[in-house]
Structure formats: structure tokens, C-alpha cells
């Protein structure tokens, strides 16, 4: 039985799990999780086998490619629209393989974790059904070889995210957050769908309208200037889709609110997998972007700006999950920056590492929240390290990883991004990135400090009840901690020409050629070493600063957590504005409310008024006026016979006159 034959199972198993659970899951009660979890387990196994074969080159060469190994399944016909035939097939190439690792692994762990986390929820079966639906959509997204199918998955993950954010449907806030997430995503999708339409038009101009990713990109590049729609437009439109899904700058507002959903959801969808879809999309379309440098710059700029914006907000948030959400935004910003500077591999690298440690952190935070009885405000936590050591330990690993302290995973990926940016002479990206690294370390350890160090600030009654989460939750944490710690060492070495590079080279070489990046050798004791040093220093600096402010008693750095320091610090004139800005997320939510609720609402109301009074009003007015006219004419009928007679006489006179005129003139 070949792997190709198994590929469809990657989709069918979660889909089946979803359908079964959705229709009859309610009956299974507390054992509703079995079918979905098993489905994902099998998926994981299949995926791992496939990935192994693909990355080791054991898989056959992809059709129409001389160096890329992978599997294809299909294609199956979908939309036969005249000369435009939209089929969909599945392809596993190295890029997809990397994504599969993250998606299936974290997906599996989150499923297992949820068994414990959701055990008391009435909607247990529903939750697992949704999770499987999401897994189906996400796998479809990474496996599809056709723009439109990707878009389908794109929307489906949006749907499952909507359902999962709104999972606790009785909460108004959840409902609003879910709606917000979906609508904001739709903004990006608008761009994406137009981009797809543009691709159709362009390929049609090339004489062979197609939406197959590989073919279409080749056609577009071959046509170059001859494209009816300029490539930069296409690229930016596609990028708009990526921005929506990956919550980049103008469209970043939905992600923090998405934390209304259950924590496993946040871990899986809003940290590890779905939000990475944008990165994947652009990596997938790398030649397209590589051929339009201006678009690349936009990507880099938006990415790095999102990174610093989110980081600055994360500094002051007090909701543990929101902090993580903003840090996710920030890290995604890094990835886009990487893509923008042409460091595709680095972006994917960071995508993978971030997937693991951010998933870990979220699950950990879930464990924390679980422990302190659904409390999310860090100001009412503290000193938890003594109560929930496993969670603490694992989260500590995650924090170090994200802070970029070697040799943990985050260090390798982040450092590669910064290095590539520097060497691609995008100095501003590098500079900002470096600063963001500082902030990252700071807010992560602020989180750790407020949560685990110092003394408990919540109600004492809870303190006694706090206990470590069940094994079904802690085991996934541990399993995630391992890659968070070691993934970098595993695939990040040797520096410069890492294993990952080897894997992804066939996917990206076309783009790198197009970009014609200066590929000088890696100098550990030269520029690269300096860069490493720089990033490590700032990371440590941030760590220490956070430690000073929120730290524990340790030797001569004896300093209990002193929030008043924070208050006094943030009261400083220069800082106070920044502090408030950060606290209020730079007022973006208020801006959106003003634009779309107040002003937009007024516009809509005005239009409705226009519809009622002007459009419909005109219609009714015509009718009314007709009747009025009728009533007026009716008055002629006075009931007096002699008025009638006079009318007749006058009519006669008029007719006589007109006849005299008509017949009088000579013909």
C-alpha cells in the first residue's frame, strides 16, 4: 500500500471523525473523544511516515520537477467552468512536510490535552467535533495543490476558528470575538479571492487558465510584464489574505479577542497552526514574491511593524492568554519580516519552532488557568511554581526558547532571521528585530514572574485548592517541551547551512535565484558571530530587566516582586504615554469601533432610511399621487346634470375649433 493511496486518509479521517461526532457524538457523553483522538493519531502516524520519506528523499520525484521529492494524489475534477477547469489534488513536498510535522504533532497533543481540559464541559463532544473539523481544514490547507482549494481550506479553518472561539456560546463576549475573528479574516480573504481571480485572468491570457499553484506561478513568471494584471498586484492581493489569517498589522485586532475560546483552541489554532497559514501561503508562492521586490518590502515592513507593535502591547497586558496572544502576533511579525527579506527557510524554521514553544506556552497557561480556577488575570496569581512544578518547568523551557536563549529552539530560528535580514542589508528590519527580541525576553519573563514567582496575590481560599493538572494534560506539556528545547539543535545545525536548508532548498531555490542574494559563506567568528552575540545580549538584558522588576529572592539580587516599581516606572513623563498606549493596545479597538460601528452604523442606517423614504417612498408616492389625481378628477362629477351639459357644450366648442383648424389649413 503506497503512501499516495494513504494521503486522502489525512483528510478523510478527521472529516469522518467530525461527521460522526457531530451527528451522534452527543450519545457518547464523556467518551466522545475516542473517535476524534484516534483519527488524529492515525493521521499523525501516516503524516510522519510520509514526512520522513519526503525529507529523506526516499519519496519519488514530484512530476515536472527534477530535484523535489514528494507525493501527489489526485487530481480530482471539481469545477469545470468552460475553459477553466479547477481540479484539486494533494501534494506533499518538503514545505508541506515541515508544516505537517507541526500541524499533526501539536494537533495530536492538543487533542489529548483537551481530554483533560474539557472534561467538565457539557459541550465535550461538540468540542472534539470542532477540533476534528479544524484538523481536516488545516490539513487540506497544507496539502492542497490548487489556489482555490487552498482558499476553501482557508475559509474552513476560519469557520472552525469561529465555532471554537464561540464555543462557550452563552458568553456574549465569546460570540462577539468569534464574529470579529471571522469578519476580520474575511477582509483578508477578499484580497485573496481577488488575487485568485487575477491569477485566472493572467493564466487565461497565457492561453491556459489554471489555478494549479505550481503551473500558474510558472505561467505568471514566464509571462512577466505581459500579464494583464501586474504581478506586484497579484502578490499584494495574496499577501492581503495572508495578513488576515496571520493577523498582521491592520488586521491583527481579532487575534487577542480570539482568546475567548478554550485554551487548547488558542494553543492549536491561534498559536501553532492556523495563524501560520499566511506564512505558509507566501512561502508556497515564494517565486511570485521573489519576482516582485516591492511586494517583498511591503511584506517585510508590515511584518516587522507588527512585531514591534504587538511586543509593545504585550509588555503591559495582565491577562495571561492575551500576553501570549500578542507575543504570537509579534513572532508572526518576525516570520513575515523573514519572508520579506527573502529568508524563506528562516521563516519556516521560526514557524516550526514557534509552533512548538508557543503551543507549549498556551497549554501551560491553560494548565495554570485550570489550577487557579479559570482565573486569567496575572495580577491575582504569583508563586505558583511551588504548586504546579511540571507546568512551571515546561513553561520555563518555552519562555527561554521564545526569548532566544541558546541553545533552545527559538534562538536558532530567531537568530537566523535577524542574521539573514542583516546580510540582505535590510538593516532597519534587523535593528527593529533586535529591539523586539529585547522586549520579547522582557514580557515573557514578566509573565513568568507574575505567574510563578513571588507570592500568591489571589484569594487565599483558592491557594489551598491549587493542584497540578492531571497527567493527560501534563504529558503533552512535557512532550512539547522536548522539541521546544531541542528542535533547534536538531535541524538548525550546522549554522548557515542547516539540515532544514537542505530540506527546503528545492522549494526555495527558484526564489533565491530570482532574488540573487549574496550568498557568502557563514563566518561564526565574523559578522555572524557578532550578530549572534548581539541578539543573545539583548535577550539576556530583557530577561534580567524582567527579573529585576518581577523577580524572586535570589542571593544578592534579593528583590521581591515589586509592582509599585512598575507603577513608578510607568509614571515617568516620557514613559507614561507609551505605557498608556501599550495598555490600551494603541487604541486600535477603539478606532475600529469608531469606524465600523459608529460611522459604519450611521451609514447603514442612513442607507436604510434612503431605501424607505426615497426609493420606496417614490414608489408609494407615485401610487398615492395617482389616487389623489383620480379624486381630483372625480370632482368634475358634480351630480348636477346641467354642469355635465355645459361640459359637453364646451367639449363641442373645443372639438369644433380644432376641426376648423385641422381642416382649415390647405393640404
Amino acid at each position, binding site marked *: 500500500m503506497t503512501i499516495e493511496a494513504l494521503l486522502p486518509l489525512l483528510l478523510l479521517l478527521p472529516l469522518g471523525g467530525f461527521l460522526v461526532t457531530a451527528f451522534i457524538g452527543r450519545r457518547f457523553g464523556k467518551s466522545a473523544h475516542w473517535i476524534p483522538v484516534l483519527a488524529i493519531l492515525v493521521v499523525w502516524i501516516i503524516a510522519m511516515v510520509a514526512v520522513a520519506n519526503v525529507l529523506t528523499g526516499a519519496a519519488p520525484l514530484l512530476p515536472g520537477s527534477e530535484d523535489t521529492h514528494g507525493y501527489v494524489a489526485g487530481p480530482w475534477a471539481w469545477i469545470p467552468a468552460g475553459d477553466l477547469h479547477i481540479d484539486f489534488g494533494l501534494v506533499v513536498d518538503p514545505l508541506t512536510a515541515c508544516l505537517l510535522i507541526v500541524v499533526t504533532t501539536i494537533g495530536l497533543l492538543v487533542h489529548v490535552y483537551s481530554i483533560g481540559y474539557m472534561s467538565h464541559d457539557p459541550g465535550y463532544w461538540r468540542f472534539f467535533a470542532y477540533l476534528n473539523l479544524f484538523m481536516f481544514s488545516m490539513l487540506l490547507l497544507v496539502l492542497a495543490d490548487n489556489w*482555490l482549494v487552498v482558499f476553501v481550506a482557508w475559509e474552513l479553518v476560519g469557520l472552525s476558528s469561529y465555532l471554537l472561539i464561540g464555543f462557550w456560546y452563552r458568553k456574549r463576549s465569546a460570540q462577539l470575538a468569534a464574529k470579529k475573528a471571522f469578519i476580520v479574516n474575511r477582509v483578508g480573504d477578499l484580497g485573496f479571492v*481577488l488575487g485568485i481571480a487575477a491569477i485566472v485572468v493572467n493564466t487565461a491570457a497565457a492561453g491556459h487558465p489554471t489555478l494549479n499553484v505550481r503551473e500558474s506561478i510558472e505561467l505568471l513568471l514566464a509571462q512577466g510584464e505581459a500579464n494583464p494584471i501586474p504581478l506586484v498586484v497579484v502578490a499584494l492581493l495574496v499577501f492581503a489574505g495572508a495578513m488576515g489569517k496571520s493577523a498582521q498589522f491592520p488586521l491583527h485586532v481579532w487575534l487577542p479577542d480570539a482568546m475567548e475560546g478554550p485554551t487548547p483552541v488558542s494553543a492549536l489554532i491561534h498559536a501553532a497552526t492556523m495563524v501560520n497559514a499566511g506564512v505558509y501561503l507566501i512561502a508556497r508562492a515564494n517565486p511570485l514574491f521573489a519576482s516582485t521586490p516591492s511586494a517583498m518590502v511591503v511584506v517585510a515592513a508590515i511584518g516587522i511593524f507588527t512585531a514591534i507593535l504587538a511586543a509593545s502591547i504585550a509588555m503591559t497586558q495582565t491577562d495571561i492568554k492575551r500576553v501570549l496572544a500578542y507575543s504570537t502576533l509579534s513572532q508572526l511579525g518576525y516570520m513575515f519580516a523573514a519572508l520579506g527579506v527573502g529568508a524563506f527557510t528562516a521563516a519556516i524554521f521560526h514557524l516550526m519552532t514557534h509552533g512548538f514553544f508557543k503551543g507549549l506556552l498556551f497549554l501551560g497557561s491553560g494548565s495554570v488557568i485550570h489550577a487557579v480556577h479559570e482565573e486569567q488575570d496575572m495580577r491575582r496569581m504569583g508563586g505558583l511554581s511551588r504548586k504546579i512544578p511540571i507546568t512551571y518547568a515546561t513553561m520555563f523551557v518555552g519562555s527561554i526558547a521564545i526569548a532566544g536563549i541558546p541553545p533552545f529552539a527559538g534562538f536558532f530560528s530567531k537568530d537566523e532571521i535577524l542574521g539573514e535580514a542583516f546580510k540582505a542589508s535590510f538593516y532597519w528590519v534587523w535593528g527593529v528585530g533586535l529591539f523586539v527580541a529585547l522586549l520579547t525576553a522582557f514580557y515573557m519573563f514578566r509573565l513568568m514572574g507574575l505567574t510563578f514567582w513571588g507570592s500568591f496575590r489571589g484569594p487565599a481560599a483558592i491557594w489551598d485548592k491549587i493542584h497540578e493538572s492531571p497527567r493527560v494534560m501534563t504529558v503533552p506539556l512535557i512532550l512539547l517541551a522536548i522539541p521546544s528545547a531541542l528542535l533547534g539543535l536538531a535541524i538548525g545545525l550546522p549554522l548557515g547551512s542547516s539540515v532544514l536548508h537542505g530540506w527546503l532548498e528545492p522549494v526555495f531555490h527558484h526564489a533565491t535565484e530570482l532574488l540573487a542574494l549574496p550568498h557568502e559563506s557563514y563566518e561564526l567568528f565574523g559578522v555572524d558571530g557578532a550578530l549572534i552575540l548581539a541578539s543573545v545580549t539583548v535577550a539576556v538584558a530583557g530577561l534580567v530587566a524582567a527579573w529585576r522588576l518581577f523577580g524572586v529572592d535570589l542571593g544578592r539580587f534579593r528583590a521581591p516582586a515589586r509592582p509599585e516599581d512598575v507603577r513608578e516606572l510607568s509614571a515617568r513623563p516620557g514613559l507614561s504615554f507609551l505605557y498608556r498606549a501599550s495598555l490600551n493596545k494603541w487604541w486600535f479597538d477603539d478606532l475600529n469601533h469608531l469606524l465600523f460601528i459608529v460611522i459604519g452604523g450611521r451609514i447603514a442606517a442612513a442607507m436604510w432610511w434612503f431605501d424607505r423614504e426615497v426609493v420606496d417612498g417614490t414608489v408609494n408616492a407615485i401610487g398615492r399621487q395617482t389616487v389623489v389625481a383620480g379624486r381630483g378628477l372625480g370632482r368634475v362629477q358634480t351630480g348636477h346634470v346641467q354642469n355635465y351639459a355645459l361640459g359637453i357644450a364646451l367639449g363641442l366648442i373645443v372639438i369644433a375649433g380644432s376641426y376648423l383648424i385641422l381642416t382649415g389649413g390647405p393640404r
Partner: protein
Amino acid sequence: MNLNDLPILTVVTFLPLVGAIVVAILPSSLTRQVAVGFALATWVVSLLLLIGYLPGRPGQQFQYVEQADWIGVFGIQYKLGVDGLSAALVVLTTTITWVSLLASWRPIQTRIKEYMISFLILEVGLIGVFLALDLFLFYIFWEVVLVPMYLIIGIWGGANRIYATIKFVLYTLAGSLLMLVAILATGFSYQAANGGSWVGAFDFVTLRDFAATTGFAPALQVGAFLAFFLAFAIKVPMFPFHTWLPDAHTEAPTAGSVILASIMLKLGAYGLMRFAVPLFPDAAHTFAPVVIVLSLIAIIYGAIVALVQPDLKRLVAYSSVSHMGFVTLGLFVFTQQGIEGSILQMVNHGLITGGLFLLVGVLYERTHDRTIAKMTGLAARMPLWAAVFGFFVFASGGLPGLSGFVGEFLTIVGTFAISPAAAAIAAFVMILAAGYLLYMYGRLVFEEVSDFLTGLGGHLTDMDPIEILTLVPLATLIVVFGLQPGLVLDLVRGSVDDTLRAAGSGAALAIAPELVIVAVALLVVGVAARIGWVLAAGRGGPPDAALVGREAAR
């Protein structure tokens, strides 16, 4: 059996009429069963028709043509024929009809007999419109549709039903009467061009070929096209002529709304596609920009107005305006994808909006209220309803994998080829649609159960088997067409090619720019005058949006 032997089209058209007569004769106790029975029988026959048609004969159109001299003096014939487009719409009609008859099982409790009779006669008219190949015959069926609908809304409708139904009839009639003039003028000018012989003067095929080869005089084309267009645009309904729709939908009984949304609106689109464009290609090209602009306005405007509707049915009605905008848009860009998308959109809108109205009807049965604000938290009280409602809401929102998406996508692609800007505007509705749909869905289904619903207590039961049965076919088709749109597209390919060929044979006439300027100026002045008049009449300006804002999406 060989379908070509028996006059299957006549059968499928007039079987419901037989049903109506039988219902009229039989005692009232049997009414419902008999009516549904006949509807189902018609459905089966239409399926036979479809199956018989399917063996890939696209390209060459009009199967099963039945032809008989009717009013020989004018070459008016009784001529029926089916091509892919009409086949699809006929099956849609027969399906929706029995579905809505089932849906009326519980709601309609008074004067059942009259109700069923009206409904069956309505079906006759609808099917006839889709099958008629003689302009005169077409017009007759077209008008036949009016009366039963008038009764259905007017007798079994809501509180304000009489206003709604009279508005509906007068509005439609005003358009169609002008169309009659146009039809006669067309037939006559063919007769004049044909050496005074009336033979085939109203035969669609003859006229279309004539239009494709010789072509009608520009003056006639412009006049007749405008008349046809007015009639059809009112039916669709396109932007400035749409205001009868919300009223009619709101007041009509559930089944009435379903038929109205699923089939009636298609009459207009079908007419445009079948008659207006092929017969007057030059005029069609000349006015295409206008139609496109109107469609775009309808798409966006309908969605925006839907955003602030407090009434459930009104919201869906305005969403219909928005969706039907895609149909006209796709048709008048005259590209393959556009037209295919437009046809697909017709079918999908029929299924999806029909389903939405059914679900709203289910809710209304229990609450006797349609105010969105009053009802929240239905997920807790009617989980099954909530789930199905969600399905249709997302289908309506164009969720990929469900049928709604493909039509919209193809339309957008087809439009993009002509004008990216137009495509962008049309695609913008994705956001607005998500806005009003999720606003509706979120308010109804999520959050705590509202006091109003709690007050209903036991009345608020979940869907009963019949109601589920009505929704199953629609949902199934939505999924099937979403996964295999080819089922429809292959069926209608022939029609699409014909329309394209006909449209291709046309070229825009020269129009004096000053005419356009004058027209636009008049329009602007008129609207301004109206606004001024309204404001002067003290009927208040645009309302304060604060409330709306609170309701709308965050």
C-alpha cells in the same frame, strides 16, 4: 419507456393543474395529501425529464420540443422546449414546490383547499415560464404566475399583507404590461421584415436566429430591450425596483416566501438570459454598463441595508437583493465564467434562501415574532434548529465547499476579466455578508436565552420530522452542488454557449453622450428633489445610528 413519445413537457406543466382540479373536487379531508401527492408526481416527471435530457446533449439545445399552431393568424404557437437552463430551473421549481407544500403542513390551517389550489396553479405558471418557447405563450404564463401569488400573500399573509400583495402585483404588472407591448412590437417588426408573413413571428428560436443574423432595428432594440429589462429587473429585483420584495417577503406565509425567493426571482433572471440578451444583443451591449452598475449597487446596497434590519425576514429579503445582484452582474459581463456563475448563483440562491426562509418560518411558527432583538440563545432551546440554521447561514455567506461559493467565485472571476474594479466591489460583499449573517446568527443562536423565549416555555420545541424533511433535500443539494458544481455546469453549458454566442453577435450602439448626461442629471435632480420633499414633509432625516451601532457587529 421512450420519453420522446409522450409530451412530457405538457405533462410536467399541466399536471399540477390537474392536481388543482382534483383538489377542488375532492373533500377537504384529503386536500393536503392529494396536493403534496401531485407536487411529488410533478417532481418525479421533471426528474424523468432531466434524466432523459442528461445523456450529454449539451451544445444543441431545446429537447422535447412540442409545437402546435395556436393562434395561426399571428403564428402564435403552443411551443414548449427545454434546454439545460430550463431543465435545471424546472427541477428546482418542482422540488421547491413540494418542499414548500410540506412546509405549509402545520402553518396553514385556514382555507387549506384554496391554498393548495393556488399553489398548484402557481406551479403551472412557473414551470410554463421556464418551458415556453413562444414569446406570447411565455407572457401568458408570466402573468398566470401573478394571481395565485397575489392570493397566497393576500389571504394567508401577515398583518400588513394587503398592502404588500397589491404593491407586489401592481409593481410587477406595470413592468410586464410594457413587456407585452415590446413582445408585440418585436413580433410585428419580424413580420414586417419577413415580407408580412406572421409565421414564427413569436417563435423564440426564429426570432433569436433573426436577431443573430439580420438583427432588429436599433430603435426597436433599444425600446424593446428597455421594456423587457424593466419587467425582468422588477422581478429580479434589481436595485431601484426592489422595494416590493422586503414587503412581500415579510408578509407572505413561509411557503410563499420560499417560492418567492427560490423561484419567482429567478423568472426575471431567466427572462434576461433567455430573451432580453439574445433578442436584442446590440441594446444589451449598449446598456450592459448600466446594468452592471445597478447590479453592483444592488450587491453592496442590499448587504448594507440588511446589516441594520431588525426583522428577520426583511434581513433575508435584502440579502436576496444582494445575491441576485450577482446573477445580473454575471450575466451582463458576457464572459463564460460570468454567465456560468450567474446560473449557478440562481440555483444556489434558490436552495439557500429557500432554506433560510423555511427555517425562519419554523421559528415564526413557535414564536409568532420575527424581531431579531427579542430572540437570543436559541442554541440552548432549539439546538438542532440552531445547527441547521448555521449550515444555511454559512452557505448563504458563500462558505466554500457549499454551493453558494462557487457561483459567486465564478461570477467574480468572470467580472474580473472585464473590470477588476467591479469585481473588487462585488467581492466586497463577502465582508458585508459575513457581517449581517453573523450578526443575525450570533444574536439568535448565541448568548443567554432571552426572556421573550423563556416566556414561550414549552411552545419552543425543536424541529419536528416534517420540518426536517423539508430541509433535507435543500441541504443535500447545497452540499452536492458545492462539491460537484459540474452537475449544474455541464447541464447548462449548452445554454451558456448559446447566450454567449448571441451576446457576442452584438455590439454597443452609439449613444449621444449628452443623452447620458441628461439622464444622469435628471436622475440626480429627481433623487435630490425627493429627499428634499421628504425632509420638508418632516418625515425625519436618517435615524441616529447609536442603537444600530450597539446592535451591529463588534
